[in-house]
C-alpha cells in the first residue's frame, strides 16, 4: 500500500488530527531512552479499543508492522519502530475507567500515567504497588509491556503480580479479555504471558490491576557506609535475619555526588555508599525491627544511620533516589543502564567486578539500584558523539551482563530485552529455549506484525 493511501485510511479511522507524518514527528516518535532510533512511516493516536482494532486489522491486511508506544521511557529500545510501519501512541487513551474500592481493583486505559493512577487511588486510601522510578512519566501500558519493577517491589512484587486482566487486540484485529476482576478463571494464564512481552504479542487497550491497603506505618532509614561491600553485606544480612523490608535501595559515591549537586537530598558526599531501608506495615513491632536493622548496619561498619522523623524527611531521602538518573545525566551527555540481576548475596562480588570493568574500559560507572532484589543498574557515562567511546560502552555493557549471568543471574531484571539485549539472550537461553518462545510468538502473532525485531533473536537455523 502506498504510504499516502495508508495515512488516508488511518485518518478515516481516527480523524484527521490524530495521524502524524511530518518528518519532525516521525523523528520524535522514533526513539526511547536507549541509544538506537528508527523512524516509523506514520504515527497514529487512537481514542478507543475499536479504533485500535481497526488500525491493527488494516496493518495485518497490508503486512505493515505495528509498534505500541507509551511514554517511550523504555531503556532497551522497546517502542522503537525498528522496521518502520505504524506507531500507535496512547496519549489519548489515558482514562482511569474505574476504581472499585470494594473489590480493590482499578481498570485503566494503557495511556494512564503510573503516578496519576497512584495519586487517584491514594485519595481512596489504597495503593497500586509497582512504583518504577520513572512513574511520573511512564504509562501503565508501558509498565505492562516491560513488567516494570520499582523500589517497593522487594516486598510487593512487580507489575505482573498486580495485573489481574488485560483487554488485548490480536494480530487480526480481534479483541479479547484475559483474566478479569474475579480470580481463577480456568485456562492458561495468558495475562501472565502478556505482561513483559514488550508489545510483541498483542496491543493492550485496557488493564485491570489489583489495589492494596496503604500501610498503617512507614519507617525510612538511611545507612551511610565507607565501602560498597559493607553496604551490600548489610543487604544480605537483613534478609538473612528474617526481615523483608519494603525497600532496600543503594547508591554509590558517583551517584551520591551527582544527586547532592542536583537535588540536595542530604547524603554525605564523601560516603562510598548509602542504603535506603524502608519498613512498612503495622506500627506494632516496627520499632524493634528497626533497632535490629540498625544493629545489623553497625555490625557491618556503618558510619551513621539516619532515621527519617517525619514525612518531609522521608520525602527528602526519596527525592535523591528518584532523581538519581536525572542527576547523573548532568555529568555526561549520555548514560547507558545495565539492568543485570544476581542472587543478592552475590552483590559484593559483582559490584567489585563492575568497578574493575569501568577501570578496564576507562569509563565512569555509577551505581543506583534495587539492592534487595539483587537488581543492579550500573550507569555507564559517555558522550554518544564520540563513536569510539560509544563502542567501548556497548562492550563494557555486554561484559557486565556476562558477569551477572556467570554469578547465577540474568540479563534483565526490569528494563526488558527490546533490541538492546537480543545478542545477550544467548547468554542465558539455549536455541531450544528461544525456539519455545518463538512458538508462543507465532501462536499470538502468526504474521509477525507486532513490534518486529524485539525480544527474540532470530533462530540460527
Amino acid at each position, binding site marked *: 500500500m502506498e504510504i499516502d493511501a495508508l495515512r488516508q485510511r488511518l485518518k478515516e479511522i481516527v480523524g484527521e488530527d490524530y495521524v502524524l507524518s511530518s518528518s519532525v514527528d516521525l523523528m520524535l516518535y522514533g526513539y526511547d531512552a536507549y541509544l538506537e532510533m528508527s523512524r516509523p512511516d506514520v504515527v497514529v493516536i487512537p481514542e478507543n479499543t475499536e479504533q485500535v482494532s481497526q488500525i491493527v486489522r488494516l496493518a495485518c491486511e497490508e503486512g505493515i508492522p505495528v509498534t505500541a508506544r507509551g511514554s517511550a521511557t523504555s531503556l532497551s529500545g522497546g517502542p522503537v519502530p525498528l522496521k518502520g510501519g505504524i506507531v500507535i501512541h496512547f496519549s489519548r487513551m489515558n482514562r482511569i475507567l474505574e476504581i472499585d474500592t470494594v473489590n480493590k481493583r482499578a481498570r485503566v486505559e494503557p495511556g494512564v500515567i503510573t503516578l496519576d493512577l497512584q495519586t487517584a487511588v491514594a485519595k481512596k486510601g489504597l495503593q497500586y504497588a509497582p512504583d518504577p522510578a520513572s512513574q511520573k512519566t511512564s504509562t501503565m501500558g508501558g509498565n505492562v509491556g516491560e513488567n516494570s519493577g520499582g523500589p517497593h517491589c522487594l516486598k510487593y512484587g512487580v507489575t505482573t503480580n498486580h495485573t489481574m486482566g488485560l483487554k488485548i487486540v490480536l494480530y487480526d484485529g480481534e479483541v479479547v479479555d484475559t483474566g478479569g476482576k474475579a480470580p481463577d478463571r*480456568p485456562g492458561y494464564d495468558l495475562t501472565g504471558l502478556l505482561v513483559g512481552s514488550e508489545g510483541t504479542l498483542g496491543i493492550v487497550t485496557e488493564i485491570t490491576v489489583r489495589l492494596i491497603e496503604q500501610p498503617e506505618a512507614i519507617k525510612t532509614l538511611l545507612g551511610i557506609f565507607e565501602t560498597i561491600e559493607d553496604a551490600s553485606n548489610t543487604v544480605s544480612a537483613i534478609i538473612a535475619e528474617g526481615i523483608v523490608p519494603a525497600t532496600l535501595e543503594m547508591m554509590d559515591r558517583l551517584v551520591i555526588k551527582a544527586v547532592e549537586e542536583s537535588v540536595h537530598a542530604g547524603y554525605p558526599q564523601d560516603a562510598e555508599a548509602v542504603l535506603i531501608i524502608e519498613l512498612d506495615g503495622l506500627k506494632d513491632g516496627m520499632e524493634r525491627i528497626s533497632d535490629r536493622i540498625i544493629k545489623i548496619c553497625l555490625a557491618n561498619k556503618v558510619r551513621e544511620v539516619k532515621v527519617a522523623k517525619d514525612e518531609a524527611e522521608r520525602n527528602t531521602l526519596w527525592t535523591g533516589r528518584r532523581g538519581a538518573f536525572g542527576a547523573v545525566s548532568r555529568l555526561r551527555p549520555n548514560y547507558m543502564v545495565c539492568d543485570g540481576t544476581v*542472587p543478592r*548475596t552475590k552483590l559484593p562480588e559483582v559490584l567489585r567486578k563492575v568497578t574493575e570493568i569501568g577501570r578496564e574500559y576507562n569509563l565512569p560507572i555509577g551505581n543506583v539500584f534495587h539492592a534487595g532484589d539483587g537488581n543492579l543498574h550500573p550507569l555507564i557515562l559517555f558522550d554518544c558523539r564520540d563513536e569510539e567511546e560509544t563502542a567501548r560502552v556497548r562492550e563494557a555493557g555486554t561484559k557486565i551482563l556476562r558477569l551477572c549471568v556467570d554469578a547465577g543471574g540474568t540479563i534483565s531484571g526490569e528494563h526488558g530485552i527490546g533490541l538492546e539485549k537480543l545478542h545477550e539472550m544467548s547468554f542465558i537461553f539455549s536455541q531450544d529455549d528461544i525456539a519455545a518462545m518463538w512458538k508462543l510468538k507465532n501462536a499470538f502473532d502468526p504474521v509477525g506484525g507486532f513490534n518486529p525485531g524485539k525480544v527474540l533473536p532470530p533462530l540460527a537455523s
Partner: protein
Amino acid sequence: MDIKLLHGILNPQMVSSDTATLTRFSVDGVVPEAVVCPANLSQVSEVIKLANREKWAVTPWGSGTKMEIGQVPKRLDLVLCASRLDKIIDIDVANLTVTAQAGVKLGDLQDLLGGAENRCFFPLEGDLKAQADYMCSGRDYKGVFLPLDPPFPDKATLGGIIATNSTGPKRLRYGLPRDLILGVRYVSPTGEIIGMGGKTVKNVSGYDVSKIMIGSLGTLGIIGDITLRLLPLPEQIATILVSFNELTAVTGFAKRVLNSKLLPTSLEVLNRDGYSLSASTDLKAPSGRWCVAVGIEGFSEEVKREITDLKDMAHFEKAIEMAELDSDSTIVFWKNLANCALTLPKDGETVVKFKAGFLISNFPEVLEAWTNILPDNFCALTASAGLGLACAYLVIKTDSDIEKAARLGKAFRETAENYGGSMVVEFAPATLKQKLDQWGSPHADFVLMRRIKDSLDPLNVLNPGRFLGGI
C-alpha cells in the same frame, strides 16, 4: 503399544505394564498401557520424543492427588510419573530461594525448610582472600518456608501443585504459585528440555513462559524442576475463631477485617459442616451456624495487636463465641482443613468438590445463594472472604447420587457466573463428569489457548482432552 521401544531408553525397572500398576495409574477409569518413572529430565525428554514419533498420549503424574481434575482423558497410552524426580537441588536460605524437582512432596520440603539453620553465606564467594569472612545471621529462631498451603500438603508434589495452580487459605497474604515461581525447567510436548528463569527474584529476560506452565494441567510440558521464593518463618502464628448465626454478621465481620490495616494470612468462612472438617479432639465445635477462621502470622507485637483488634471487631458484630488458637493448635486446625477431603467419605461414598471464583464484592450474595440451594445432608462450605473464592464439598453415594450432584453443581456454577465468576469441578467421579462440565464454557480468549496448545504440542501428546474446551 510396543513396550520394547521404552526398554530401549529406560531401565526395565522404570517401566511397568502389569495389570495392578496399570489399574493404580488409571485416570478417570481410563487404563494406560504402560507406566514409566524416569530418573532424570534427559530420560523424560527421550520418552516424550518417542511418544511424538509413536503418537502416544502421555499423562504426567505427580502423586495422583489431583488426577480427578479435568475431563475424562480422550486418549491415554502412557503415564509418566514423577516419583523419581524427587531431589531437592538447592536450598539457599540467605537468598530465600529453593530449587527442587517436580516429584518432591511439599510436606517433605517444608519439614526441611522449617529446620534450615544455615543462614550463612560468603559475601565474596570466589574471592579467595575473603573466604574466612562468613556472614551469619544472629536471629534466635530459625527456618524458612514456602508460602503455599494447597490441599493435601503431605502428598501433593511441587509439579502437581504448579500444574494445577493449587492454593489454600494463605493465598490471601502470600499469593499464588505464579507469584512465587522464579524459574522452571521442563520437557516440552515435543521433547526438548527448556529452561526459563533462575534464582533471581526479578527477571524480564524473554517471555515469562513459566506463567503458562502454571495451571496448565500438564498439557504444555512436563515440569522437571522449579525454583521458588521462600520467606523466613514468622516469629509467631495464631488463629482466631469467631462464630455467628447470621450470614450478614459474617460478611460484616469480614468486611471490617478487609478494610482495616490488619494483614491476616487467611480469612476463611466455614459453615457448620465445613468447621467439622477442621475440628479435632481438642477443639469443640462452635455453637453458631457459621465460623470465621482468621490466620495470623508475623512478629510477636503484630500478632498481639491483630488478635486484640479482631476480637473487637467480632464483638462489634455480636459474635456468639470466640476462641484463640495457639501455634500448635493453629497448625493442626489448618492441616485438618487441607486434608479434609481424604477423611470424609465412607464405603460406597465419594467426595465431590466444587470451587468457584467470583467478585469479592459479591461474597455475601454467593454465600447466601449457595446456602439456599444446599442439600439437607452433608455439605461443607469453605470460602475465602478476601479473595472471592468458595469451595463446596459434598459426600455423595457413588451409585445413586450422581444426578443430584450434577444438578447442584449446575446451580452453584450459575450463581458464580451471575456474580462475574466461574466454577470448576475439582474432584468428582468420572460418572459425574459425564453429566457436568468440569471447566464451564471458555471465553473469547480461548482462541489463544487453542493456538498455544496447537503451536507447542502439534501432535496432541500431553494430556489430550483433559483441559478447558477439550484441550
